[in-house]
């Protein structure tokens, strides 16, 4: 309603003016509540139906069995071990590289056309479809470097996939630290590295961690790039143990082992014609959701622990 004049100062006119504005405010609150309700109900319905469907399968045996052509006996042992190991390699690749690159780009790189170009490319890479990373990995890691269809190839691929996410969130987290605090550190004679290491990195660690977890949550559910590099869909053995009885006690043989991961196992079961396998797929879906949930829970816990150290 277009008004040419301010409302009259009489109590009743003021009341009409205010209640109209309050109405708009309240209607947005109702709209928001409604949207949240719809989203929650849909999500909950999905998870609950998955859970109900998969419940008969959620036994200890399901976790400790290899896949089988008999749906009753089939389990996810190879898949969850594979997922865990691939995620481990992904973490080792993506976290140090991503955080270091983010720090360099945000704090050290001079602001010129080159850094602008890199920034655009990194942001763009975060949105590239994962299958493209799969193709790159197939050509480069698998063929050129000869790493084969191994856990190492998968970890490198997923690490590359989430690297841009880690870089971008690291930069944003560092940028959010007020310049007053940077100047305070510099004014005391801190070098650039001391300023970063003693101050802005710890202060922004919680946000950086969030970015890492978002990346990891994405990586744990990825299927396409891993199928592209040649992950198995049916596997009946585990990678060699990383711990040995004899010297040097640690073995890296598992890096070269073939593997499968949870989403591939699930996809494999879904595409089977037998109805019984749908139950297995649902159960694997529930486990995958809980794995992601556990990852997020861990992040929240770490962030909480860390914020206690930082005394805002």
């Amino acid at each position: 309603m277009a008004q040419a004049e301010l409302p009259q100062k009489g109590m009743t006119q003021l009341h009409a003016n205010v209640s109209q504005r309050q109405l708009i405010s309240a209607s947005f609150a109702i709209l928001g509540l409604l949207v949240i309700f719809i989203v929650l109900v849909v999500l909950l319905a999905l998870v609950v139906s998955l859970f109900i469907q998969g419940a008969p399968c959620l036994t200890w045996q399901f976790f400790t069995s290899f896949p089988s052509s008999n749906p009753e006996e089939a389990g996810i042992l190879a898949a969850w071990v594979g997922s865990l190991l691939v995620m481990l390699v992904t973490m080792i690749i993506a976290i140090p590289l991503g955080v270091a690159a983010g720090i360099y780009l945000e704090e050290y790189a001079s602001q010129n056309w080159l850094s602008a170009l890199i920034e655009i490319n990194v942001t763009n890479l975060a949105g590239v479809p994962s299958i493209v990373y799969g193709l790159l990995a197939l050509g480069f890691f698998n063929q050129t470097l000869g790493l084969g269809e191994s856990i190492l190839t998968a970890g490198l691929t997923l690490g590359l996939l989430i690297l841009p996410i880690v870089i971008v969130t690291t930069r944003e987290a560092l940028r959010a630290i007020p310049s007053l605090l940077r100047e305070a550190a510099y004014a005391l004679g801190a070098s650039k590295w001391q300023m970063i290491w003693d101050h802005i990195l710890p202060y922004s660690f919680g946000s950086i961690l969030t970015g890492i977890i978002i990346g990891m949550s994405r990586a744990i559910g990825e299927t396409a790039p891993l199928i592209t590099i040649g992950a198995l869909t049916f596997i009946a053995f585990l990678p060699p143990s990383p711990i040995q009885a004899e010297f040097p006690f640690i073995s890296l043989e598992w890096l070269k082992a073939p593997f499968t991961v949870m989403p591939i196992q699930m996809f494999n079961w879904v595409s089977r014609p037998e109805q019984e396998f749908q139950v297995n797929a649902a159960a694997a879906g529930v486990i995958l959701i809980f794995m992601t949930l556990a990852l997020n829970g861990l992040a929240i816990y770490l962030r909480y622990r860390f914020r206690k150290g930082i005394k805002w």
Partner: protein
Amino acid sequence: MVEDVSSRILNSSAISPKAEVRNLDFYYGGTVHALKNINMMVPEHKVTALIGPSGCGKTTLLRCFNRMHDLYSGNRYGGEVLLDDINILDKKVDPIEVRMRISMVFQRPNPFPKSIFENVAYGLRVQGLTKRSAVDEKVEQALKGSALWDEVKDRLNDSAYTLSGGQQQRLCIARAIATNPDIVLFDEPTSALDPIATASIEDLVNELKQQVTILIVTHSMQQAARLSDYTAFMYLGELLEFNQTTILFNQPAHKRTQDYVSGRFG
């Protein structure tokens, strides 16, 4: 009325300067000529105030003393700031060396989100002091020096953010004096504080000049008059007048200074 004009002229040979500014020019981003040919002295163990209307360049001048402008690209200095006959603006001088000798207290209290103890200890740690007892001693000294010790001695491990605004600013002063600097720069240290906290900071500045040389930017003429021994009046990037505070306020040489200190503009 016969006025003795010569008594109004600053007798510079009577001053023992801690630092001296000679023909200082400063350019923001290489283009904005923010400081024009500044010449002044910072007398040792005195409080020197920089006053002038907003945008006159007083904070810019202050931040030349600890090379804060080096943090942002494109800024350029001309001329000299001498500290013990060394030009601290020289490219060969690392800004970090300068900041180890000239510390700063900012306009708004900006303690680190760490404990009270760690805030004060940080400057010492940066400079490589690690011996626990030595750090403890210097922290206590600095907190006593900033009149905060009695209020915080039982909660040194609490967050600095649990302190009030005035206490936070005194903590920042403790942080700035812990490393025994030659000069402490104050950039409008009380503009974010209430009158009582302001008074305690002012008392503190008065105490501190026994130990260190103080350069303070203030927008409050009363504060400059109360606190400082010498005052520089700046206007549009130039230093119009530099003299003993009593002379600058009572018998200014320039009409503009007169107008500003009598509250006619600014």
